[in-house]
């Protein structure tokens, strides 16, 4: 039986810059020039209620953020070795993204406090895709 492939993204025109950036080791996200805040995922307007400005640009984010929430998956995708952590990270510049928390020896809730500072780890994958993963600082 062939090994099950990991699900990889297919960049689209409005997200290409983000994926190109990750491959270079940069976290490129978009920021709204009207409300001044970063957002995720990329699209050609600010998704924030009450703003929705189309005056937006790209920035290189610091790769720092906080752990917003997570699960420790014991029965996840067959291409992943369980258990593993699926998390949401709030980026310092604004915007929230899904990720995996890597570099932890002991996957215990006590070692993963919500609100903990995290930083990006650029994780090369197949098909020229680099994924943004995070570790506790």
């Amino acid at each position: 039986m062939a090994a099950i492939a990991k699900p990889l993204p297919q960049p689209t025109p409005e997200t290409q810059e983000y994926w190109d950036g990750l491959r270079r080791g940069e976290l490129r996200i978009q920021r709204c020039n009207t409300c001044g805040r970063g957002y995720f995922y990329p699209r050609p307007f600010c998704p924030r209620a009450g703003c929705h400005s189309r005056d937006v640009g790209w920035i290189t984010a610091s790769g720092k953020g906080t752990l917003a929430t997570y699960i420790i998956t014991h029965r996840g995708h067959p291409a992943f070795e369980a258990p593993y952590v699926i998390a949401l990270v709030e980026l310092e510049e604004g915007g929230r993204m899904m990720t995996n928390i890597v570099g932890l020896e002991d996957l215990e809730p006590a070692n993963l406090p919500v609100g903990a500072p995290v930083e990006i780890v650029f994780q090369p994958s197949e098909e020229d895709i680099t994924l943004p993963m995070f570790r506790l600082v």
Partner: protein
Amino acid sequence: MFDTRELRHKVAIVGAAETNEVGVLPNHSQLQLHAEAAFNALDDAGLTLDDIDGYAGVQGAAVTEYLGIMPRWIDATGVGGCSFLIHVSHAVAAIAAGYCSTVLITHGESGRSRVGVGAPSGGRGEPGGQFDAPFGVAGPPSRFSVPIAAHMAKYGTTEEHLAAVSVATRQWASRNPRAMMREPITVEDVINSRLIAWPLHLLNCCLVTDGGGALILTSEDRARDFPKPPIYVLGRGESAQHQNISQMRDLTGWSAAAEITGPEAFRMAGVGHDAIDHLMLYDAFSHTPIYALEALGFVGPGEGGPWFAEMNSAPGGTLPVNTNGGGLSYTHTGMYGMFAIQEAVRQLRGEAAAQVDGVRTSLVHAPGGMFSATATLILSNE
């Protein structure tokens, strides 16, 4: 333009039924489940398919073809498990506007046996495919569960609180012969069941089953001409806030329920929380009813876990919740909302397996997807 309050009590459910069985039904295609439920609901209302001039269901035209009907109003809203509540909501407006007079809503889902079911969708280039899927989310247990740790951190919600939801729901299921899981369980049983995605254990997760249900709605002026007592739609609310769980507005609260669907349903119904004597809160996982109870204002933010731990929702409790045994223990085909409505109708008619005395007004609330879409109904037998 009129006020939605003018639609209060204007449309009633006059037929309601599920498939002959719910559970594991490998001898039924998904469309067969739609049809079996439809015929059962028609029998319940004393009608035939020729009396139907409006149709709603997530499979839309496929079901009109299978049933051989050509309605003058259709609604194929398909936003997951709350779709059927939205179909009811839309049918109220359609009947009041004269688009049609007699609406059939069907649900059929071969969620477990997967007979006659299309391939799951979701491309690698869609936002979920690009920004969530690469991190190993795999189905609802690893998506719906993601916000819980934020709720625990903010409010002190515990695994014991989550377990209590499953325990109370199982107590109702043990009184329902049609429920798939009827053995009583304890908080320890839930916490000792295997981890699926911390903080969720197996017994915090809904079942995966086959089954269906159908409803027939018509206008108030005709509603008393049917064999069963009419169940009136007093209030409704609907919304959507995201598709992918990573984009949920507030990880610690159900924004659309708190800001839109709950307030709108109560406003239209013209009743307060104290008028609600029965709740159906879609329980895909143990935390879903906790988020719902808080967002709808039955308790304050963060008070949902302790409320369930006090067994308020259980038989003999202060406010019965999920009296059929819920998605956790009764049945859960994938899009459970239809079964939540069915149980509310049974309780309001006085024909439920675990009948609660004197139910007059029931609130049904459901998510579609992972807290993605949201809908609320307030139903009454008065």
